[in-house]
């Protein structure tokens, strides 16, 4: 841990009126980590992500990316630095074919900068990226209008949109929710491949079994506070976590 962390969260807090959604959460992320954030509903997982990505302004604390303070920056500036996220509720552009949905992230100034000012043929890049996340090219799924696609493909589309931005950190908000076992099993290798390519990933997940198989580290939130931090095994053995998930007996 001698290296400077890629992402550092220090005492991050957010209160919505009287509700303390996130209170003094701290963690650091090294390059290549896959951090799982778990916790019961309403424990502040998505709010934490919203704070990191700037969709919600923090009431206290700091977010540092490569040592730079990015707390409460506008979302688009944070994305340009290299932090991309997916949304729990997928909201594709329903009237457009799947591959046209990819045009918007490909139009991003970040992609342009990385490509050295040349966009290339966005449609072709979009089709390639979609094939990577499992849009079968032969079946022409990528040409179908998003409104007719099943949830599994919409989640893949959401993932592909994040990949298109070539981020350093990807934050996947409940990517597996609403998917069948088989669908999850087919997406896991895609995430493993991203890790192998050197991406750093944060996953919010309720599907603990699948998450624990790939996560290098897990933190557990409850009522906006961090109650455990460590490897999947350590976390599951913590009494606090058992209490949070199963309820206390007294």
């Amino acid at each position, binding site marked *: 841990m001698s290296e400077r962390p890629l992402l550092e969260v220090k005492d991050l807090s957010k209160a919505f009126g009287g509700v303390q959604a996130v209170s003094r959460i701290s963690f650091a992320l090294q390059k290549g980590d896959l951090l799982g954030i778990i916790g019961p509903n309403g424990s502040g997982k998505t709010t934490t992500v919203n704070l990191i*990505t700037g969709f919600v302004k923090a009431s206290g604390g700091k977010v540092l990316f490569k040592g730079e303070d990015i707390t409460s920056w506008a979302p*688009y500036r944070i994305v340009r630095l290299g932090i991309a996220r997916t949304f729990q509720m997928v909201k594709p552009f329903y009237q*457009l074919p799947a591959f046209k949905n990819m045009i918007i992230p490909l139009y991003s*100034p*970040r992609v342009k900068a990385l490509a050295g000012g040349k966009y290339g043929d966005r449609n072709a890049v979009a089709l390639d990226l979609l094939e990577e996340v499992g849009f079968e090219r032969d079946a022409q799924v990528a040409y179908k209008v998003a409104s007719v696609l099943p949830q599994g493909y919409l989640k893949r589309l959401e993932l592909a949109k994040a990949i298109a931005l070539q981020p350093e950190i990807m934050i996947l908000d409940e990517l597996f929710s609403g998917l069948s076992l088989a669908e999850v099993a087919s997406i896991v290798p895609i995430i493993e491949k991203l890790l192998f390519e050197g991406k750093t990933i944060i996953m919010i997940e309720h599907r603990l079994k699948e998450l624990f198989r790939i996560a290098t580290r897990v933190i557990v939130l409850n009522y906006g506070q961090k109650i455990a931090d460590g490897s999947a095994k350590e976390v599951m053995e913590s009494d606090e976590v058992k209490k949070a998930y199963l309820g206390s007996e007294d």
Partner: protein
Amino acid sequence: MKKRKERIDRGIKVRSEDIFALTSWREMLYLSAPRLIPAIVFLVLPLVLEPYWQRVLLSVAIFALLAISWDILAQSGMVSLGQALFFGVGAYCSGIMNHYFGISPFFAIPAAAIAGGVICTVLLLPVLRLRGVYFAMVTLIIPLMIERVIEATKIFGGTEGISGLSVIPSKWLELYILMAALLAALFGFRRLMDSDYGLVLKGIKDNDRSVMNAGINIYWFKIEALFIASAVGAFAGAMMTHVYRFVGMPVFALDYSILPIAAVMVGGSGSFAGAVLGAFILVPLSEALRALGGLRIVFYGVFLVIFVVGLPEGIFHFISRKYQQFERWAEVEK
């Protein structure tokens, strides 16, 4: 036996989407007709109409431009109730340049389009973060406010307005400048909205968070769309000023806000062609009904209601569907 309506692409549409389009005149005509017809109509109409209807045509073109301007904003997720703002600011800009500085209309009109675009964009900058009905309310109020400001401070002629402005020397030039502007706006903006840039604008309307999440500064895109739309509206206003040789408080009237919206409703939104078609129907209709006096508004209103209820997609989308597809009743098994 139950029946269900089926829509099937016409053979000629399918054929002309492919390389076969180049094999026969029929297919080529099928492809080019939707582009040629409006172009020919716009260019020929001024020649065949009587002087009175030529004046009506001027109005049609001006309202069509305002409707296009409304449609650009609507497609970018900004619903405006204040086209009169763009129209009025453009009209005053051109009038002021001509009256106080003696600038010829040929320079004043394009300059007013740009200046009007800048002024309106700056005026609406603070409310750009508002969405939906809130943005609409603010746009409705601003032109009415400006009207009162002019009345109270008596600037630029106050309630009298500025009259005796220079005209564009020839009636034909006047008509053809407007026709050319209308054609350029119609085809230019259709092309713009079909490009990747347009896709981003439409994305902002659908789901702005998702666009932000792509590292795109949506406010900058909204500002650009707002500038384009207000420059088109300001151009329409500037033209009108030099047609009537007068600019005054009526340029901020509600008519210039409501009629363009009505035109888009009747014609169909999201295509620009619908906006133009709507103006081509509504403006002459309102002229034809002039003889009815006060009842005119009633007929006009009834006509609008019939359209909104009976053909909510708008005439243009109806026609283009008929052009591309045919319908038939197919039997459905019980």
